[in-house]
């Protein structure tokens, strides 16, 4: 098998997620039935999206492995490839290389634990995959708490699902926006502030935190105050990547490759590394 050869796929659906139009969710279907059937990933893994003639980009897989038959990728328009992708239409060919990386340990360390998911902005994507997976296997986990925030109500991802999750009684969901907005009746405040108010218990628990570095930095003190330790906190790093296989050398943080050894690390692991991410 050639790990550089993408699986051929088609764009099956496109959803504009945010009011600024900069985030779209692409539903992709692998073209070949055997590749579609044998595809399996762990929430938190990523894949290389390949647009022949433009290049490849590493994007976290936003769908859960329990959602079969297609893959979801929520993509922020930022560089050459993502801009090209944003211009593409339903039915156009694309390639998918993966799944890559390690993912969250949903079937091992996280099993039987109370789970706290904290996310800011568009870093929610692989945590959506994780949450869907956990809800499909609800009995394997204890309490599940979600704190998710965006700048404005219009910048929240997966708005329909957020509503459904808020209505479930086996899930504790806190959705917040940075400041008051017309028509918004939910929480207002930065994610770290809301996390501090929620005060999740560290007992038999794990926290999965994805967001901008500044959010992670300010989310840690309120958690530490109530007894959380670095080995209970899982982070997902990102770096520029080319191969996604631990060869090309672009994404290393000291001795580890984000693409191969990560992207998921405990905060305890990250604290031992140079700050090169």
């Amino acid at each position: 098998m050639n790990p550089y050869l993408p699986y051929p796929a088609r764009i099956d659906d496109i959803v504009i997620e945010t009011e600024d139009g900069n985030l779209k969710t692409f539903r992709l279907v692998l073209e070949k039935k055997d590749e579609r059937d044998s595809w399996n990933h762990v929430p938190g893994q990523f894949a290389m999206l390949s647009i022949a003639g433009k290049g490849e980009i590493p994007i976290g897989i936003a769908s859960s492995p329990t959602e079969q038959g297609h893959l979801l990728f929520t993509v922020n328009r930022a560089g050459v490839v993502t801009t090209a992708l944003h211009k593409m239409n339903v039915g156009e060919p694309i390639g998918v290389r993966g799944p890559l990386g390690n993912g969250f340990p949903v079937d091992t360390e996280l099993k039987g634990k109370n789970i706290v998911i904290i996310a800011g902005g568009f870093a929610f994507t692989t945590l959506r995959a994780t949450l869907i997976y956990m809800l499909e296997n609800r009995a394997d986990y204890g309490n599940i708490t979600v704190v998710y925030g965006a700048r404005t109500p219009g910048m929240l991802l997966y708005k329909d699902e957020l509503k459904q999750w808020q209505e479930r009684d086996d899930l504790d969901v806190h959705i917040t926006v940075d400041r008051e907005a017309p028509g918004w009746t939910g929480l207002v405040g930065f994610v770290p502030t809301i996390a501090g108010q929620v005060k999740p218990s560290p007992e038999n628990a794990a926290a999965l935190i994805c967001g901008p570095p500044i959010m992670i930095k300010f989310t840690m003190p309120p958690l530490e105050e109530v007894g959380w330790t670095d080995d209970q906190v899982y982070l997902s790093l990102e770096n520029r990547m080319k191969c996604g296989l631990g060869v090309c050398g672009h994404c290393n943080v000291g001795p580890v490759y984000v693409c191969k050894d990560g992207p998921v690390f405990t905060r305890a692991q990250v604290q031992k590394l140079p700050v090169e991410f």
Partner: protein
Amino acid sequence: MLDKAGFEDWLRELAGQFEIFGPKANDRGIVNWQKLNEGELPDERPGVPKGSIKTFFFPQPETLLEFSARPGTEDAFIPHEPGTEHKPRLVVGVRPCDARSVVLNAMPYEDDPYFHKNRQNVVLIGLACRQGCSTCFCTWTGGSPVGTEGLDILAYPVSRGYVLEPVTERGASLVESAGPGNDATGAELKELEEIRSKAPSSLPETMELAPRLREKGLMDLYNAPFWQQLSDSCINCGTCTFLCPTCYCFDIQDETLRGKGRRIRYWDSCMFPLFTLHASGHNPRGEKVKRVRNRFMHKLKYFPERFGPLSCVGCGRCVRDCPVNIDIRQVINELLAT
């Protein structure tokens, strides 16, 4: 043992089967890897050619995938593996340090089909070093001037020609194809023994560096104070990374021209700020000191932690051609002292 004429005949014979390359001086006297014409022997001047042999295993550029870039056709923009095969290659005059780099690079490239295909396609005939150069230090990195790692055949240069030592099976069958050759005289056997015993002593004293650097604390080395001073003079030209046989980082880019497209990889350098630049504008190694440190730490600490040996063969090219005289041997000494 083959005398020079016998060696020439042998290469002539092999030219039917292989494209033959070796170190050859250009019109300005710079020795580099070039195709050897009929009757040409590898340049035997001490030291290594300008560029490393990674060019044979990690071509610049290498086509990973091809695709049609003609919109509207059924297979448009659906990449496939390239179909082109090229004639097997035989590289003569390879110094043991260069050959060893192939073995080291094979560690990260374990699952890389292109690298392995190139390894199958390229036969290496080594040339033992009679003596080291002022920039050589293979003896610090686990190598030897008469080392055989990565080679198919090692040739010892003696006055009349070469004594051939087969290393791999494919090397042995090639040596066999050379016929019985000449019997080595007593004087030639003595010459051979002298190379084996004296060449290493012309180099810095052997050191087991990898275990010593492995046991040092990662962040102690990372935070060592000398990095700043060292990087002050670096101009981030990337010469060290391009000449280095064990610098194997690459970039992948797509190109399209007249309806044909290909995805290629080519040498990249962690000395360049673009290497780590995120699309957001954030750059985790935006400062020069971080890039200089990364290159040395990768070779001397990160790679050994993952694979065991240093990612350096002591060929000394980076020392020889650095425009601001940064010397990896000095970096090694600084790290050992940290």
